[in-house]
């Protein structure tokens, strides 16, 4: 359905997107994940034909976007960042405008509007002005215009950004519902969203793809095992570092600086904890006692997407 080949785009001397290639099929929900400014929105703008890439090409439904921009845009439903809308319009008029431009036959126009209104629950606000709506409703209007023509490819730029938890949940439910019949590419910097709705996650950093896998696969990459985070009130001595490094239980050790000035460690275990026991925890605590360190924070768990994300986009 969608194929991006080596998309590259620079703004003045900043390379916003650097040779991004990926493809997506019907039934897939691809999460574009990355810190702010990683090039997510720019990539989406190129897929939708709003921006032309400096080099590279996008194919939508087998058609070159650069050569058939009007045709490919017919196949795409797009929710731009911050869901911009013509705020002085009534919701109904706005949807009608989009439907007209999208070339929906006037006989089926009313029915299609009814369908999307029901799908995103806009019944209550249909005759209100868009600028009088809450953020959540505005976002739903944005989604409604993106799906009014039943597109095969849906591009959603931060669809849940700025919404409250309930609204976020609603939008994610809708995405899950739509996912069965479409190819969806969405961008986000919210990791739980990826785990909740995406079948695939592409992590971008500084314009480059740094990982492309299922959310579970990415977690595996971070390390198959569990992890222990531990923070101390004090700075640790060099000897402590050496002793902890000598532990065979830990596959990998990262040290980090706590904001208050203390030291923190992230210790990766080779195996996930199946019974809640964390190997090495006992000896770690014994060592802590020996060095007379004050533990201010500790977390035991399995490595999460967040860890992968932090690791890859540092």
């Amino acid at each position, binding site marked *: 359905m969608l194929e991006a080949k080596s998309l590259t785009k620079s703004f003045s001397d900043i390379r916003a997107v650097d040779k991004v290639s990926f493809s997506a099929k019907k039934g897939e929900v691809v999460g574009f994940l990355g810190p702010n400014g990683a090039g997510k929105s720019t990539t989406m703008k190129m897929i939708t034909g709003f921006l*032309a890439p400096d080099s590279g090409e996008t194919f939508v439904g087998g058609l070159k976007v650069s050569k058939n921009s009007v045709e490919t*845009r017919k196949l*795409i439903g797009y929710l731009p960042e911050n869901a911009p809308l013509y705020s002085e319009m009534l919701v109904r008029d706005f949807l009608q405008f989009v439907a007209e*431009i999208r070339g929906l036959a006037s006989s089926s126009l009313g029915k299609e509007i009814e369908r999307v209104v029901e799908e995103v629950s806009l019944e209550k606000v249909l005759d209100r002005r868009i600028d009088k709506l809450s953020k959540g409703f505005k976002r739903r209007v944005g989604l409604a*215009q993106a799906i009014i023509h039943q597109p095969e490819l849906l591009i959603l730029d931060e669809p849940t950004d700025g919404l409250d938890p309930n609204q976020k949940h609603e939008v994610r439910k809708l995405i899950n519902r739509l996912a069965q019949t479409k190819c969806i590419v969405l961008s986000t910097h919210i990791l739980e969203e990826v785990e909740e709705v995406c079948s695939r996650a592409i992590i971008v950093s500084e314009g480059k793809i740094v990982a492309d896998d299922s959310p579970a696969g990415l977690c595996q990459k971070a390390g198959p095992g569990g992890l222990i985070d531990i923070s101390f009130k004090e700075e640790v001595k060099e000897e402590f570092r050496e002793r902890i490094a000598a532990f065979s239980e830990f596959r990998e050790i990262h040290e980090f600086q706590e904001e208050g000035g203390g030291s923190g460690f992230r210790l990766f275990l080779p195996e996930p904890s199946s019974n809640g026991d964390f190997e090495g925890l006992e000896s770690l605590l014994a060592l802590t006692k020996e060095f007379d360190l004050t533990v201010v924070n500790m977390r035991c768990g399995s490595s999460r997407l967040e860890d992968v994300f932090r690791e890859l986009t540092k």
Partner: protein
Amino acid sequence: MNFGIIKSIVKREFRAYFSTPIALVFLVVFLVLSGFFTFKMGGFFERGQADLRAFFAWHPWLYLFIVPALSMRLWAEEKRTGTIELLLTLPIRLSEALLGKFLAAWAFIGFSLFMTFPIVLTVGYLGEPDYGVIWAGYLGSLLMAGSFLAVGMAISSMTKNQIISFVVSVSVCLFLILLGFEPLVSSFYQVLPDWFSRHLLNLSIPYHFESIQRGVVDAADVIYFLSLIAVSLMINGVVLENERGN
């Protein structure tokens, strides 16, 4: 070019004027100012002639400020709010969006101009005007407004900032007026070679408006205004395409 799409855009844009205070403010200011210019500055009654010269003579100056006030938002606002991304990712050609927006704004100015009809009734009541000259005046005025509008719209496409858009548009339109401004023309043009000043004068808006408003609808004048509109729309298109990297 799909006329159905252009129609939808014109409809949306035109309605937007009336669902915001723009229409009301524009109409009131336009009508009050044209009344002021006609009766106070133009000496409509004192002239004792049943024509609308006093009304039309000030139109270049009236449009100089009022048309950029209307055109300044055409693209700048779409850019600031991000709706340009929504509009230009719909399956439309840029030319359709351009024409739709332009025609809606032009139609709105046409509507405002239409609202000055009481003045036509007034001259008709007071004397026996030559209606041919009056219609020519209206045609010239509408063409001139369209030219200012297209220039202003092209400038609006270059910025997100409506104030910049307004100030630059007024300056460019002022330049187009001054090229044919009588006091300036008579002194300044004398020092220039004859052929050069003739060309400059030919580029000026008042030069062409003057002759239409006298009742002589010359094809050259109409073509001048239409070309000014076409060139401005083309520049507008190039600016937007260029910005998107095409």
